């Protein structure tokens, strides 16, 4: 299956693009020309336009925007990757558990998930974030991860239900494999594809949600550079210094596009009807 995925041209392209974004973000300490939090020159470099020394200009506190965008992308990607890890693990575990336990447990779990899905995500996040005093990276990952697994658990349960009806599961049962063994050894590898799709689409979504939270002032505490926080800081003087807002905005759009494209190309490569995968 992995070979099929890598064999798909659109998957390779999207993977390459995602790789470039991730490499740039995680090389921030080496690529950045300045310390992202350093106030360089409060008089001369206060909202200075793009120049040779500061390709993306500087912000209100005379900090280099390019450095802040690089560090901000690193923060956003880290938060997104870790949150997705939490949410996908949790979602998969709950989806599988719902099937394994079956009956009333399944029904109760899935109705709870339905209920959670009915609450607007941003409202839920606002309430949680408002109750938190000082949000550090771990707290943000926990908040985002713990509120975004509902959809994944539905997907996993649906996939498990369809995998369960396959003949190989009946064959495995007939040969005396236990339910847990069938779930982990036979069903899980078969639903790895949809989980992968959910994960890479999730990265894009979480970047957006995190940017939104930061924009509302509920993200990581300043002066930590984050893409959403940069837009929030720059909005009040967007007419005098558009570069402060445009740079992180463009990065958000590009990053989200890249990970959505990755998710879509994976979905397509995994869909037998699209002909992307040999039968």
């Amino acid at each position, binding site marked *: 299956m992995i070979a099929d995925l890598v064999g798909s041209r659109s998957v390779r392209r999207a993977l390459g693009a995602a790789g470039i974004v991730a490499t740039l973000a995680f090389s921030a300490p080496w690529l950045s020309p300045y310390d992202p939090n350093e106030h360089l020159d409060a008089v001369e470099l206060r909202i200075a336009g793009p120049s040779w020394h500061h390709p993306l200009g500087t912000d209100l506190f005379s900090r280099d925007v390019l450095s802040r965008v690089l560090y901000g992308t690193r923060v956003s990607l880290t938060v997104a990757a870790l949150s997705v890890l939490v949410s996908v693990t949790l979602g998969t575990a709950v989806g599988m558990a719902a099937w394994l336990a079956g009956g009333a447990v399944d029904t109760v779990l899935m109705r709870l998930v339905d209920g959670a899905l009915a609450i607007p995500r941003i409202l839920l996040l606002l309430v949680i974030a408002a109750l938190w005093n000082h949000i550090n990276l771990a707290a943000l990952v926990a908040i985002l991860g713990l509120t975004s697994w509902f959809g994944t658990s539905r997907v996993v349960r649906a996939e498990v239900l369809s995998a369960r009806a396959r003949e*190989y599961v009946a064959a495995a049962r007939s040969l005396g494999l236990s339910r847990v063994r069938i779930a982990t050894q*036979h069903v899980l590898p078969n639903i790895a594809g949809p989980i992968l799709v959910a994960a890479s689409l999730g990265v894009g979504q979480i970047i957006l949600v995190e940017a939104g939270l930061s924009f509302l002032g509920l993200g990581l505490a300043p002066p930590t550079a984050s893409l959403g926080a940069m837009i929030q800081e720059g909005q009040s003087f967007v007419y005098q210094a558009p570069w402060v807002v445009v740079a992180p905005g463009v990065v958000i759009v590009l990053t989200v596009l890249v990970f959505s494209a990755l998710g879509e190309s994976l979905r397509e490569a995994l869909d037998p009807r699209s002909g992307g995968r040999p039968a």
Partner: protein
Amino acid sequence: MTAVLSVRDLGVTFDTPRGPARAVDGVSFDLHAGETLALVGESGCGKTVTALSILRLLPDAARVAPGASITYAGADILKLEAEPLRQVRGAGIAMVFQEPMTSLNPVLSVGWQIAETVLAHKSVGRATADARAIEVMKLVGIADAEDRYRAYPHQLSGGLCQRVMIAMALACEPKVLIADEPTTALDVTIQAQILELLVDLKRRLGLSVLLISHDLALVSGVADRIAVMYGGHIVEEAATADVFAKPVHPYTEGLLGAVPRIDRPELRLAAIPGNVPPATEWPAGCRFHPRCAHAWDRCSTGEPGLVAAGANRTARCWLIEEPGRRKSS
């Protein structure tokens, strides 16, 4: 001969929107040590449901009649707790399914899947399980077993996949092998090879085989005894030679008439008129009477029981009591 597996009064009902469907009704048979018993019948006659009930693999919607019992190794399978049941599956009674391609997990290598079965039943390490997997792959005649261990199902032919399924079934040395239409999905030449393999394995390992098939001609060379099913009943059970020499039940007669005979090429193949009615609407009386050439009024009112019809054979037909009514063909 001792019975390895005894099925008594097995009835299975499915609740459907059109009322209860009695898919299997009052089925009893014994599978003796070292013999091959074939369950033969058209689609919808209850063969597969019977096979699935033996390993309790029926869907949740199925209800098994309260008086039924399926005895294996001194215990009633229908009353087993989860763990002993799991032990019987695979290590006592193993099953081979109709579609080898879909019965194997597409994303796992075939050797790994065989080893999985070993690990499910024996407390051995991965290496021992792998060695056993390769050993059974050789047993079922897979060449280059070490290389094929790593192959995925889509890389193997249908015949090879079915050999892998049989290897999986035999990995934990079961006493009974249930083969549900094991050759139906395969090419004719491969069918013969797989049947030969089953016969050979049965002899070498002392297995008892319950062979399920719609093809009377196919089982004739393999089965020691044949039980013909119609409408959820066993309508005739006898040694294979007796069935072919002189079928008692008109349905068996009809099935035999539909088998092409190389020694009588001038004979037209006879079709049995009509279809098997749905299991929700069995006709009153004998379930076969609407399609039976010999039927008279008694057949539409009273349901015949399974009675002796000679030495070591039984059938479910009023003609046994009133042989004079048999119309000569």
